[in-house]
């Protein structure tokens, strides 16, 4: 069992905010990273010449940025110093690029979904697998868990989530995920990351979970068993995670499986919100509750037979179901 790589965070004097945007971690690279895909809090890309819409948007973006920068800036500096300068991350993570995405995620986290987080102290230092329920049609839940670890965890930690192989075939999306530190969900990738004492987020329900319709909200789908073998082989503790609130962001009533097969997508959800037109594309501003449970340490080597692994899977699944139920009970209303 490796000792945690991240030493206790050393307090670093704050540097002026203007340095934030520079590629501190990517010092040897001269050309700036490519233009970010998500322009949530953009510095210049709004049209400068007149136009009421442009002015309002610029004003909004600046306010948003100021609001986030005050706290996010501090955390971001810390991540930079913890990861240290060096070559490109082997998995394609790029802090200079991810910064924009995290700004956007932070806005969603604080303002849109107003996340309430519990049990962050349960996350052990060093390697661990965060195992969560998956819901909400688009993987905002993964984004919110990762944001919680950056904004609210002490010290801030980078979460790598295991994305669908399908996402790697999509232009723009695949690059965006890679630059934000997301990794294609393959055991070999997991192994390398765990050896580096990183935090990995897995959704054992996979596409089945995220695309389920609203009538089955908060019922866990069947779990894959790969994560248990990974945890055993790499002696990584499992932290059960429950996300409540994501189920209602896009209430889906139907999954067009046939169409999904044709276009090669895992699912094509149909939400009554489409009746609202373009507005229906926005997720509903439900309140997210994210709960981290006590870590589960499994005993074994990873070469157990399927029976034993299935037993471990049941234990983890029950822990998440239990955590979900308790979080749901405490919730007063979907938006409150």
């Amino acid at each position: 069992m490796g000792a945690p790589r991240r030493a206790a965070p050393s307090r670093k004097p704050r540097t002026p905010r203007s340095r934030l945007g520079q590629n501190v971690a990517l010092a040897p690279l001269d050309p700036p990273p490519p233009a970010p895909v998500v322009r949530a809090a953009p510095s210049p890309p709004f049209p400068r010449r007149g136009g009421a819409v442009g002015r309002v948007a610029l004003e909004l973006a600046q306010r948003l940025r100021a609001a986030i920068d005050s706290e996010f800036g501090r955390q971001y500096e810390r991540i930079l110093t913890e990861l240290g300068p060096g070559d490109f991350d082997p998995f394609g993570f790029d802090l200079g690029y991810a910064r924009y995405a995290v700004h956007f995620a932070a806005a969603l986290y604080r303002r849109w979904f107003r996340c309430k987080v519990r049990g962050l102290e349960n996350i052990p230092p060093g390697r661990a697998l965060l195992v969560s329920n998956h819901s909400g049609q688009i993987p905002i839940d993964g984004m919110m868990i990762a944001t919680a670890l950056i904004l609210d965890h002490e010290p801030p930690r980078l979460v790598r989530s295991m994305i669908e192989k399908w996402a790697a075939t999509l232009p723009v999306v695949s690059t965006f995920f890679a630059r934000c530190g997301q990794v294609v969900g393959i055991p070999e990738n997991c192994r390398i990351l765990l050896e580096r004492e990183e935090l990995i987020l897995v959704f054992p329900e996979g596409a089945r979970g995220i695309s389920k319709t609203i009538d089955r909200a908060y019922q866990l789908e069947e779990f894959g068993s790969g994560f248990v073998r990974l945890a055993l082989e790499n002696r990584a503790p499992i932290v059960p995670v429950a996300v409540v609130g994501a189920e209602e962001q896009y209430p889906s009533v139907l999954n067009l499986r046939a169409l999904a097969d044709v276009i090669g997508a895992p699912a094509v959800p149909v939400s009554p919100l489409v009746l609202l037109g373009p507005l229906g594309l926005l997720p509903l501003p439900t309140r997210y509750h994210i709960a981290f449970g006590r870590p589960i340490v499994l005993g074994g080597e990873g070469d157990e037979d399927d029976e034993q692994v299935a037993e471990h899977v049941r234990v983890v699944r029950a822990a998440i179901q239990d955590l979900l139920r308790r979080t749901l009970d405490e919730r007063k209303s979907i938006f409150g």
Partner: protein
Amino acid sequence: MATGASIRTRTTKSGARAAERSVILTGVCGRLGRLLLRQLHREGRVVGIDRRDFPDAPPDLMHYRLDIRRKACRDVFRREPAQAVVHLGVMHDPRISAETRHTWNVEGFGRVLEYVAAMRIPKLVLLSSAAVYGARPDNAQFLLEDAPLLASGRVSDIRDLVELDMLAQTFFWRVPECETVILRPSFIVGEVHNEIYSYFRLPITPRLLGFDPMMQFVHEADVVQALRQALRPGVRGIYNIGGPGVLPLSQVIARVGRPAAPVPHVLARGLLDRLWRLGFTDFPGREIDYLRYVCMVDDRRARRELGYAPRKSLDETVASIREAFGE
């Protein structure tokens, strides 16, 4: 015996040297062959076999200008008491028809294997490539040596190399007394004329819109170093040769300094194929998967067992792409 006029021999400087066991290099006239030769011929006797002429060969090289598939080649192997064979003679030229190339490559290497077995040569080194794993969306970020070789599913040009690699793998158990080594380096850069060279030589470097895979490059000097390490007695097995680091393709293009144009991937293949057919480029459009998905290798085994460590830094390695154009 068919030792005809096609064999042009050069006399060695001393008869004493002829008695030592030599290293046979196939494809010695290629860039890597010359680089390896430059290092080996100072230490011992080197025999070169290549179809091409070698006008400025060092005087102590015994160069046989012949086709590996010819019978005369067998006599070379019989006459030279070789301690090792390094097979670099893989034909890559995309302009030669796939069928001719395939026959030449597979048949040629089959002969080499046959002679190595018959003459009980104790060492065989094949320079394969990391490209044999194939660029696929579900690739591990760093492929290990035991990953399946799936390249030929989509890129038929790489089929030759995959087959040679497989042939060499059967040699592990067919002739266990021979120490067989397969090296699978990532994209080799420097002055080697290969696909990646042709790609960066395009006046405008095409990129796939929205794709920017991480890539590995290895400098030719480091490949030569790995080849020499593979020649050490006792070394056998398959080794990935990664390189000094990884960079996203966009960064590499920026450092090479040519203008780049993002092309939607649905159009890129047809576009590049057309350019290729018209003779504008030697980069065949079939290989765009390598610009779309990761195909990188985990070379920890080579670092551990061969003692391989790239001497060229990532910056130097990438800079050598630009330097190769003489800019």
